[in-house]
């Protein structure tokens, strides 16, 4: 029972990171009707920027955090002009191809220039893995708790922005009917850049949480995240923010449980097995009625 609770917390923390990835990508679905496959790669590139900052300075953590947030925003906004013409044309396949291309370039860059292609580990002071908390027989790392709280806060802020603020309303209007949104005078360019900027800030935050829970990045991490995020988006229904959130948390827990209780490395098989079943039975996603 104790280890079950500990696994649940690990699972929720992992799921929380997936959830933020899915929220960020779903935000871009709303803003430009694109599936930004390379969003996860940007997160990993941001981790690499943090690692570079730490190794090239005297290991200042606050500086690394600031560099990560700023570079994530810059990287994400930099992709907006690439997607804009495709988004206007409604070219879905081309969009996916473009996004995958960006992802491959980032992966190649990291494997060539960051720590010679090996995993790039972060100092313990930044990961918080050493601090374990014990309640009775249950023990778990402080990092998982910080990640859980951080994910909940980020998700709540993003939801508030989308559903309660003027610009959030404009983004949802654009997602629903671009022509009408334009007729109401919503600026297509500026609102899009704003959406990419917010997705970028979120990417920076995800990168920091990944540093805390994983302790290291690797060139292939972007691909791993990207596949999971896209599958979770399909699972919940494209552009469905709330559905994506719950699906990601749920899958994080399923994954953690499989890791703890199934023999060998069955985690991925269970993860995709559950998702395959849902995709077959509910073609529009578990929570989806859109698209």
């Amino acid at each position, binding site marked *: 029972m104790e280890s079950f609770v500990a696994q649940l917390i690990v699972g929720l923390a992992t799921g929380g990171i997936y959830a933020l990835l899915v929220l960020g990508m779903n935000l871009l679905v709303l803003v430009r009707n694109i599936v930004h496959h390379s969003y996860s790669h940007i997160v990993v590139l941001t981790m690499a920027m943090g690692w570079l900052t730490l190794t090239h300075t005297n290991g200042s953590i606050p500086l690394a955090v600031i560099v990560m947030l700023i570079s994530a925003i810059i990287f994400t906004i930099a992709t907006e002009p690439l997607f804009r013409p495709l988004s206007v044309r409604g070219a879905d396949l081309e969009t996916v191809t473009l996004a995958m291309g960006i992802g491959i370039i980032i992966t190649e860059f990291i494997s060539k220039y960051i720590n010679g292609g090996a995993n790039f580990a972060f100092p313990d002071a930044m990961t918080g893995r050493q601090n374990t908390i014990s309640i009775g027989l249950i023990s778990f790392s402080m990092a998982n708790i910080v990640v859980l709280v951080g994910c909940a806060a980020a998700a709540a802020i993003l939801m508030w922005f989308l559903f309660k603020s003027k610009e959030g*309303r*404009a983004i949802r209007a654009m997602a629903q009917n671009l022509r009408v949104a334009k007729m109401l*005078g919503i600026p297509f360019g500026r609102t899009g850049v704003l959406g990419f900027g917010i997705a970028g800030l979120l990417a920076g935050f995800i990168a920091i949480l990944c540093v805390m829970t994983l302790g290291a990045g690797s060139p292939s991490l972007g691909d791993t995240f990207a596949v999971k995020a896209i599958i979770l988006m399909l699972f919940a229904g494209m552009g469905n923010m709330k559905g994506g959130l719950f699906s990601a948390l749920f899958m994080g827990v399923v994954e953690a449980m499989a890791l703890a209780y199934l023999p060998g490395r069955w985690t991925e098989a269970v993860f995709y097995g559950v998702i395959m079943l849902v995709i077959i039975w509910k073609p529009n996603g578990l929570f989806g009625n859109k698209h």
Partner: protein
Amino acid sequence: MEQTNVLKVENLSVYYGPICAVRKIDLEVNQGEIVALIGSNGAGKSTLINAILGIQRARGGTITFLGQNITRLKTERIVASGISVVPEGRGMLADMTVLENLQLGAYHHKGDYGPMLEKVFSYFPILSDRKTQKAGTLSGGEQQMLAISRALMGEPRLVLLDEPSLALSPAYVDKIFQFLVEMKKQGLTILLSEQNARKALQYADRGYVLDLGVTVMNGPAQELAVNPEVKRAYLGGE
């Protein structure tokens, strides 16, 4: 220069690729009048409205609004300068609530849109009752009220209405036009396109008859309504 005209369209041409949809049209809308564009389907009415709004780019000619040349401005700038639209087919954001639709209409409102919201709810209390409902759940007539209210939310100087009577019951058509006349009395300037020429000419001050992208006739609405040619072509030949 005379400053009574709110909107002045000169020598405007609009093309879809090689196809000319509007050819060298001149049009004026003066402060506080309702001007109707009438003509059959494909006459260029909607194209003209979209061109004024900057949704469809003009190939030639100029559009002047309150003395400012808006021909090349982006739609968001045109809306911000005081023109709003009731799109053809009402343009509901169906999955968003009635209130959200109204708030989006006030996207370019410079100050507090609260008083305007109150005003709109006093014109159409049904919208207040249904403000938390999704716009898609409203009836056709209620959606048209919402579309018009949404267009008023930014407190525009000029409202464009594209086929306001389309798919509405006759009772609602009169209600909508009477409301527009009421708004006119409060100083609003209105340009509308309408296939229902009889209703449009009944309520408008002036009219332009469009055919295949050119103006074939224009003048006071009462004169157009009794003109034998207009009667034959657009009023079902009485």
